[in-house]
């Protein structure tokens, strides 16, 4: 395995996907897709089912050919290179371990495909298995492994060939919650130590926030926003991103008055104020992150009847009664049993904390 290369984060173009389009039987899955990843970055592709995450990953890996556009890796065009010449490893959702081979043989596969004799692979295989703490299982059949163990083997198999890029398609989705969290931390540390450039596909936002430097939120074959987890959470670029990343209080309304960088919006629960200038009459969606909503009056104040109060341990969630499509949500820290369904409480938050989007964007 190679010595770590210098890590270059941000807007550099180690992997450069430009204007890629793909249609299946005339149905366009993506068009004009631009996607750039820096060397050593851990990036997540986050989006709802069917939005094209796997398709993008397969195009990068060379398992699916793009109809149009270009893929460059480290400045080299790989658009038409076959998968086996790209040195891009893939960890599949189902892990795709070879059922007729043992754990050690699975891990050695990439080396053997590169022409190494079976006997020469031993030390590297042992090293790779030690890396994922699977040394004791080398001679096992893969069918005799648990989901978490299979995942480790898949990771070892992918890393042993020193890939220039690692692609992981929902690598944790077959694991239960507890194991998933452990594996996320383990894998992140492992990839960081090796300075691996990696792309995770997921539709779990917590996973994306946890494992990656940056997250590309995808919707219907488009990247809606590509930013750091905190940026994504604090300043979502669209109502879709706001909904997809984290929870929020979310109201639909109509702008009734708009002055310099401040609009007044009428909602079903009263008037609220938001930053930004809109033409009066514009339909908008406003949102506030639940931990920014307080149970006291502030610049925006609503009286809310509680539908539920959920004590979740580190926080307590207050759900207000809301119309379909709206959501009234407030999070107070710690375990708080002062609230009961049916209570009327005050939700208050500041104008500066209010996110506002034109409906339909």
């Amino acid at each position, binding site marked *: 395995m190679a010595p770590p290369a210098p890590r270059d984060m941000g807007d550099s173009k180690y992997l450069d996907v430009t204007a890629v389009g793909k249609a299946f039987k005339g149905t366009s899955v993506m068009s004009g897709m631009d996607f750039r990843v820096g060397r050593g970055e851990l990036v997540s592709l986050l989006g709802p089912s069917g939005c094209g995450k796997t398709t993008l990953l397969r195009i990068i890996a060379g*398992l699916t050919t793009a109809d149009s556009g270009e893929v460059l890796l480290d400045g080299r065009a790989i658009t038409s290179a076959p998968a086996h010449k790209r040195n891009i490893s893939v960890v599949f959702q*189902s892990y795709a371990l070879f059922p007729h081979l043992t754990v050690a043989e699975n891990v050695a596969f990439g080396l053997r495909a590169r022409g190494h004799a079976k006997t020469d692979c031993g030390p590297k295989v042992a090293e790779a298995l030690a890396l994922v703490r699977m040394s004791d299982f080398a001679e096992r*059949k893969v069918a005799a492994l648990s989901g978490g163990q299979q995942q480790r083997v898949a990771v070892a*198999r*992918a890393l042993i060939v020193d890939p220039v890029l690692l692609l992981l398609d929902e690598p944790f989705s077959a694991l239960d919650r507890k194991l998933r969290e452990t594996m996320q931390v383990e894998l992140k540390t492992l990839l960081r130590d090796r300075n691996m450039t990696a792309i995770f596909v997921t539709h779990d936002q917590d996973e994306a926030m946890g494992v990656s430097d940056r997250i590309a939120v995808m919707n219907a074959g488009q990247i809606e926003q590509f930013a750091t987890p905190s940026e994504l959470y604090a300043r979502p670029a669209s109502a879709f991103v706001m909904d997809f990343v984290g929870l929020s209080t979310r109201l639909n309304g109509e702008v009734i008055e708009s002055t310099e960088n401040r609009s007044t919006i009428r909602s079903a629960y009263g008037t609220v104020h938001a930053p930004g200038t809109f033409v009066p009459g514009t339909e908008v969606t406003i949102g506030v992150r639940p931990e920014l909503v307080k149970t006291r009056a502030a610049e925006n104040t609503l009286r809310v009847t509680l539908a539920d109060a959920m004590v979740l341990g580190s926080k307590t969630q207050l759900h207000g009664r809301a119309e379909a499509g709206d959501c009234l949500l407030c999070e107070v820290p710690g375990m708080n049993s002062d609230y009961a369904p049916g209570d009327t409480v005050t939700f208050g938050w500041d104008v500066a904390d209010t996110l506002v989007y034109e409906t339909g964007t």
Partner: protein
Amino acid sequence: MTGRAERIGLLALPGLSFLAVIYALPLFMLLLKSVQIDGQFSFAEYVAFFSDSYNLSVLWRTLRVALLTTGLALIIAYPTAIIMARAKGFWLSVFLVAMVLPMSVGVVVKAFAWTILFRTRGVLNDTLMSLGITDAPIRMLFTETALIIGAANVFLPFMVLPIYAVLRQMDSRLPEAAASLGATPVFRFMNVTFPLSLPGVVAGCAFTFSLAISMYVIPSLIVGERQQTLSMLTARSFLYLRNEALGATISSILLLIAISVVLTSSWAANRLGARQ
């Protein structure tokens, strides 16, 4: 719950009793006949069979033809099965129909069709001669080669379908994972696709070999009486020579070969299955 499982097992009873009465019982009586002389237990018939060099040559020819037929069928069937496993919709139906339909055409009809193709002034010889490849017609009918080609043709579906079934249900991610690990198409085939298809290959070979070793109509029509096979010898013993003991002995030998093929192949399939 066990009680219920046992009761469900009763559903197999009609099938089992049918097999017992129609298949196992007469076969057992046949076997008995081959080891009895005048009511005495004896292997004399077997000794007699194996000490006759003509019988040995027939046995050897039967095995050789069955082996070559199986090999030829495998070579033709494997690529077909790969293409079928990748086919979808309309083309898949075309292939499946092409596999199944010929089974409904009797072997006799097929054998006569080949005669048109293979005979001295048949289609094949006329073509070869008009192309100037040969001057005189080649004798093709009544040869072992024609027999093997014909038999492989008839038994092809029994080779294609098991291999197709295994390839079809193979996870398509496996060759893809291999490719992403740097494996060339050839390496992928040799190390992933082919080993994983082995259970299908074993089943196909067992079917084809068992059918080929006991075939009677095809050799009778293609090579005739001059080159006997074990089945033809059996028929002759019963029908013309009226030598029931000899017929029973040859039948039992055929049966033993078939049983060992089935046992070996199921053992191999089990081992391959356990590896996966």
